[in-house]
C-alpha cells in the first residue's frame, strides 16, 4: 500500500531539509504559489475529500473557504498540535519524523487562505517535538523556504512555534486560541466562528497537524488520486494509533475505511496471550466504546457515525476479555473530571459527580440509585456546555453504562449480597 503521510518515516535523518528535498520536497508549495490561484488550491482540497483529522472530520476545503476575502484584517493559520486525546500519538511522529512535510503544508494552506503568518501550537509535554520543529523552522528561514519572498516568489510567510503548558481542553480550537493569546484555555462561544473572528479577533483557520501534512501530496498528485485512496466522502489515508491490549501497539497509516478488525488483528498483531476481545475505543477516549461484535465497522467518519460512535482522532484503544468495564468507565470518567476546564457548571460539577458515582460502583460502595442516576447526569451535561467536551462526557461514559450494563448491575448486586 502506498504511504502518503508516513512516506518519509524511518529514513535516516528524515527530519532534515536535505532528506526532505530528495523526495519532491517543497515542489507542491512551489507549484501552488507559481501555477495555481488560491481559489484553485481550495477547490483541489475540496475535491480531495480531505477531512479534519484532529477529531471533528470537518471538510478541510470548506473550512478554508469560510475565510472572508473582503476582510481587511490579517488572516492567520493556526496548527493544532496539542495532541491530548487519550489514545492518540500520531502528530508527535509527524513533528519528529517529517516536520518539513508539515511546514510545506503550512505554506500551501497560508497561500490558499491569504495568510502570511502561521502559529504551530504544540503541547508543552512534547519537548522533543517542539525542539525539532523549532530547529526545522530556523533552517527553513535560512534556506529561504520561510520569510520574505520564499523560494524566489513574492509570497511572504512567518511561522511561530508555540508551546502549550498541559491542558487537554486546549485541543478544542477556541480554547487553543485563548491559550495562544496568553490566557487560560476557556473555549469561546460560537458564533462568531474563528473564520470570522479567531486569533487576535482576525479571520483564522485552525487545522490539525496531520490534516495539513496531507495537503502537499494532494497538490502534487491531484485531488482525485487522494479521494480514491479513501472511502466515500472520507478522502485519503490516515494514521491510526493503536494501543492497549494488542501485540504491536503503534501507528499504522491505512486508507480511511479499513475495517477495525483488520487494524487490530492484521496490523496490530491481535490480542496478547490468546485472549478474546471485549471492547474497543475507536477514535480517542471521547468516542463511544464499541463491543467485540462491532469491529467489522469501516474506520471512517461516516461509517462510525452510522453506528453511534466516531472516528475522532484515530486513537484506537483495545481492551481484552479480562477488562472490568466499570473500572474502564471509571478511568474515562476520571480523565474528564480532571480535565474539565471549569467554565460551564454542568461539565465542571457533572464530570466530578459522574466519576464519584462510578468510583463507588467499582469499589462496591454504591447504592442502586447511584447507577440509576448516571444516565440522567451525563445527559444533562451533554448539550448544555459551550464546547463539545460536555458532549464527549455524555457520549463516552454513557456508552459504557448502556453497552455493559450487566457489569454495572453486577457491582450493585455484589454489594447487596455482601450486606
Amino acid at each position, binding site marked *: 500500500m502506498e504511504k502518503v503521510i508516513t512516506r518519509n518515516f524511518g529514513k535516516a535523518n528524515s527530519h532534515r531539509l536535505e532528506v526532505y528535498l530528495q523526495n519532491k520536497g517543497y515542489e507542491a508549495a512551489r507549484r501552488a504559489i507559481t501555477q495555481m490561484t488560491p481559489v484553485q488550491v481550495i477547490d483541489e482540497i475540496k475535491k480531495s475529500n480531505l477531512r479534519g483529522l484532529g477529531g471533528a472530520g470537518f471538510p478541510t476545503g470548506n473550512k478554508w473557504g469560510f475565510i472572508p476575502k473582503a476582510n481587511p484584517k490579517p488572516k492567520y493559520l493556526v496548527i493544532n498540535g496539542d495532541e491530548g*486525546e487519550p*489514545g492518540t500519538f500520531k502528530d508527535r511522529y509527524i513533528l519528529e519524523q517529517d516536520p518539513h512535510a508539515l511546514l510545506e503544508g503550512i505554506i500551501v494552506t497560508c497561500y490558499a487562505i491569504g495568510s502570511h503568518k502561521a502559529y504551530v501550537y504544540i*503541547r*508543552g509535554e512534547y519537548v522533543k517535538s517542539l525542539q525539532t520543529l523549532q530547529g526545522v523552522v530556523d533552517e527553513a528561514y535560512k534556506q529561504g523556504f520561510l520569510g520574505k519572498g520564499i523560494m524566489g516568489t513574492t509570497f511572504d510567510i512567518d511561522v511561530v512555534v508555540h508551546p502549550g503548558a*498541559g491542558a487537554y481542553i486546549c485541543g478544542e480550537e477556541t480554547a487553543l486560541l485563548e491559550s495562544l493569546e496568553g*490566557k487560560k484555555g476557556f473555549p469561546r462561544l460560537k458564533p462568531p466562528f474563528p473564520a470570522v473572528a479567531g486569533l487576535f479577533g482576525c479571520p483564522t483557520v485552525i487545522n490539525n497537524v496531520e490534516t495539513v501534512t496531507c495537503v502537499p501530496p494532494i497538490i502534487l498528485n491531484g485531488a482525485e488520486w487522494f479521494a480514491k485512496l479513501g472511502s466515500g466522502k472520507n478522502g485519503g489515508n490516515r494514521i491510526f494509533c493503536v*494501543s492497549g491490549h494488542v501485540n504491536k501497539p503503534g501507528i499504522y497509516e491505512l486508507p480511511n475505511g479499513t475495517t477495525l478488525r483488520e487494524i487490530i488483528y492484521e496490523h496490530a498483531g491481535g490480542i496478547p496471550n490468546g485472549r478474546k476481545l471485549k471492547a474497543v475505543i475507536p477514535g480517542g477516549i471521547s468516542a463511544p466504546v464499541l463491543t467485540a461484535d462491532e469491529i467489522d465497522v469501516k474506520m471512517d467518519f461516516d461509517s462510525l457515525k452510522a453506528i453511534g460512535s466516531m472516528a475522532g482522532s484515530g*486513537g484506537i484503544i483495545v481492551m481484552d476479555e479480562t477488562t472490568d468495564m466499570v473500572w474502564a468507565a471509571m*478511568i474515562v470518567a476520571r480523565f474528564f473530571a480532571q480535565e474539565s476546564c471549569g467554565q460551564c457548571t454542568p461539565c465542571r460539577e457533572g464530570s466530578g459527580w459522574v466519576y464519584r458515582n462510578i468510583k463507588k460502583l467499582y469499589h462496591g460502595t454504591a447504592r442502586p440509585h447511584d447507577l440509576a442516576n448516571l444516565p440522567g447526569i451525563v445527559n444533562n451535561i451533554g448539550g448544555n456546555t459551550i464546547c463539545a467536551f460536555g458532549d464527549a462526557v455524555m457520549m463516552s461514559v454513557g456508552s459504557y453504562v448502556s453497552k455493559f450494563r450487566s457489569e454495572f448491575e453486577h457491582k450493585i448486586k455484589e454489594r447487596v449480597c455482601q450486606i
Partner: protein
Amino acid sequence: MLTSDFLQELDKLTAKYEKKQAALLPALHAIQEKQGLITPQAEADIAQYLGIPVVHVHEVVSFYHLFHQTQKGKCHFSVCQTTSCALRGAEDIIEYIGKILDLKPGETTADGKFSLSVVECLGACEMAPVMQHNKDYVGCLTKEKINELIKKTV
C-alpha cells in the same frame, strides 16, 4: 527581579507575536526553566513586563498543569494514568514509586530529590505504561526501569 539578559530574551520572544500578552506561556516556561518554579515575585515581574494584571498571570499559572508553584524534586516522575497506560499496568507503577519513595502523588521527598505526579494522557500510548522523567519520555515502564532511574539520582 528580571535580569537584563532575561529581559533581552523576553524582548525577542514577544517580538514574534502581534500582541505582547501572547508570549505569556513561553515566557513562563522560560522563567520556570531558570528557577524550577514560578514564584509570586516572578508572576509580578512578568505581569509588569507584559503590562497585564498580576492576577491574570496567576490564573494562567494555576490553570496549566506544567507550571509549578512549588519546587519539584531533581528527579520528577510524571506517570500517566489514562486508559492505555491503565490497561498496561500504570496503577502498579504508580503504587510502586509511591511505596519505595514513601510519596503520595503530588508530593516531593524532604531531601528535594524526588517528586511523584500522576498525570493524564501524555500522547505516547504506544509505549504504555509511560511517564515523563523530568522532560524525557520513558516508556514500557517496569519496576526495574524505575529502580535504575532512582539509583542514578541517589
